[in-house]
């Protein structure tokens, strides 16, 4: 059973977004980590980098394949998850908690309207 927390927003490219004021924490969904399986390397964005929604921002690699992560919202990277360097499998085991990838100060809150709620995302992944 795929875990899709109610309180999060989702991009169709399978990133999740948790909002705290103007800071968005971003990771990949349980569905996405299950598709990738066995994550062995994560290339996180650089601190201070600015991205537009839809930009390729990080890479998550399994033994077999590399998966691009896209920015679900525009903004400036204010924190990255350093624990992923030593333990990239956190994305597999705790995709919504310890497996978060980066935090961004969002530059356009209106973009959040483009994201799906849990119910819509459930429909998206079938």
């Amino acid at each position, binding site marked *: 059973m795929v875990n899709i927390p109610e309180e999060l927003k989702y991009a169709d490219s399978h990133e999740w977004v948790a909002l705290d004021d103007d800071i968005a924490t971003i990771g990949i969904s349980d569905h996405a980590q299950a598709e990738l*399986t*066995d994550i*062995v*390397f994560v290339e996180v964005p650089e601190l201070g980098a600015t991205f537009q929604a839809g930009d390729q921002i990080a*890479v998550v*690699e399994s*033994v*077999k394949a*590399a998966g691009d992560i896209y920015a679900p919202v525009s903004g400036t990277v204010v924190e990255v998850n350093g624990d992923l360097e030593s333990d990239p499998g956190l994305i597999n085991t705790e995709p919504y908690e310890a497996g978060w990838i980066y935090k961004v100060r969002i530059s356009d809150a209106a973009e959040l309207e483009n994201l799906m709620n849990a119910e819509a995302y459930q429909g998206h992944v079938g």
Partner: protein
Amino acid sequence: MPMDAELLRRSPLDSLHRELGARCLPFAGWEMPIQYAGIMEEHRAVREAVGIFDISHMGELVASGPEVLPWLDRVLSNRASALAVGEGQYSLLLNEEGGIIDDLIVYRLSEEEVLLVVNASMEAEDFRWLSLQATTGVRLENRSALYAGMAVQGPRASALYEKTTGCQLPSRLGARAEESGVVCRTGYTGEDGFEWFCPVGEGAAWFERFLDKGKSLGIQPCGLGARDSLRLEVCYPLNGSDLSLERTPLEAGLGWAVSWEKGHFIGRERLAEQKALGPPERLVALRMTGKSPPPRSGYEVFSGEVRVGTLTSGTLSPSLGVGIAMAYLPTLEAKVGRPFEIEIRGRRFPAEVVKKPFYHRES
């Protein structure tokens, strides 16, 4: 090139794979299980216990007749005539330029009959090429559609075979035709194990039987993802990636599968020239020396600012926890310990040439 899903061939075990929760993807014209529980877990099962792979996509050609062994000596690189009944041998199918059409295993099943197990993507081409070379006293049949195949690999594979059939495996590289199939003590993982070829209609029942009997031995159904990481750890080449028509056995480090004593064979002249001069490039093993993303096929290799090669295979080794790869590099630079850099998404990461294989069973 994307392939229409309807054109993909399905394994006779396809329904069983789906029941077992496999993720299936296109592979060499087939839709095959890439993984079940995950590549790491499946890889570990094969290294530590036992795993079972569907290899029904592999091709099975049967050559028979009184002239079959001398004929094979002329059309393959290795010396088939050295095989006793019940023995198997790794060999290469070369073109006149010494380029590798395919790598395969020859099993001598009886006095005048051999089984050739060939790569899935090359089955039709191998059969076409061999048919062109056919001669009086040799009959060649493509029986690929008649066989299901499975590879049972790992330190407990031999015990599983005995438990399932009550018989012992043939000795290493050996093969035996049984009433219900052909068992060959070969594999593609660097572990002990066997490959079992049986009529397509009985394939799923055998796969389930091995799984059932293997429960107490820690068996894991495995997909082609783990097969790839396992074979790369022991530097077994993959045709289409590490081997191609543009490469000779000498460049690929497979000179041991070329028999010079047997006289003429297709491609010999070109290989003899290359042997005299030394191959310009060699397939080497590269190991990442620092923290890096996994190296993958197609990434470029640099010596200083000079691009010296391209990775033909690469992955993060599940057994060793480091990136491993193979690439053709200029012979003069292809020395153990020599440092290089591998470019991954615009950044360069250090690597060095290491002795093959990356992984030894005892380690």
